[in-house]
């Protein structure tokens, strides 16, 4: 399984500011995924980040709010822009197993609180 390092692990931010979350994988992967878990809710896919191309966003998520970078095959960043208290969530980076089963491995997550 892949080892995924994510930082920061937690942060408390002021309304209107932005936070960039970093994700580092110990092996080269084609696709990296960013998830959000709002309090008491399921994990929801924000976007898929492919190296060398624009990220693909899921319904309800837009690039202006959640810009993503994918400069190489082991690293990605997610920025949460112009934050509001509704953005308080756990943000998770994940990568696929590479097998037919399409199992996902997750980073440790970033607990974001917006005041």
């Amino acid at each position: 399984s892949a080892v995924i390092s994510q930082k920061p692990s937690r942060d408390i931010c002021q309304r209107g500011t932005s936070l960039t979350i970093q994700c580092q994988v110990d092996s080269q992967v084609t696709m990296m995924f960013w998830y959000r878990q709002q309090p008491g809710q399921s994990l929801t896919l924000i976007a898929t980040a492919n190296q060398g191309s624009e990220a693909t966003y899921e319904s309800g998520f837009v690039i202006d709010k959640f810009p993503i970078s994918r400069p190489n095959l082991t690293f990605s960043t997610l920025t949460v822009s112009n934050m509001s208290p509704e953005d308080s969530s756990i943000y998770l980076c994940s990568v696929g197993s590479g097998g037919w089963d399409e199992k996902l491995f997750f980073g440790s997550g970033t607990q974001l609180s917006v005041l």
Partner: protein
Amino acid sequence: DQQVKQNSPSLSVQEGRISILNCDYTNSMFDYFLWYKKYPAEGPTFLISISSIKDKNEDGRFTVFLNKSAKHLSLHIVPSQPGDSAVYFCAASMAGAGSYQLTFGKGTKLSVIP
């Protein structure tokens, strides 16, 4: 509309007893199901999975049962241990699609009481 439902937000079980976590799904196209375990301040970790061609899969103390006609799966933990206390997420996908599109339930918080 939630396609994967975990109707019990929480469950408490005595140590040594069986824990049964349930999950229902609505999309008949799902053919691969996974359970993840999540401790506080950690990311979800893969626990066990089952393909729709099977109705049971075992891994040590963990067994997942799948009832396709009822669109229902369950995770059994026997015997339950205090270290099993965590949030358990059920997830479903259409395996082989190459998109890693997992749909998750909201999770069930399991507390194993010593």
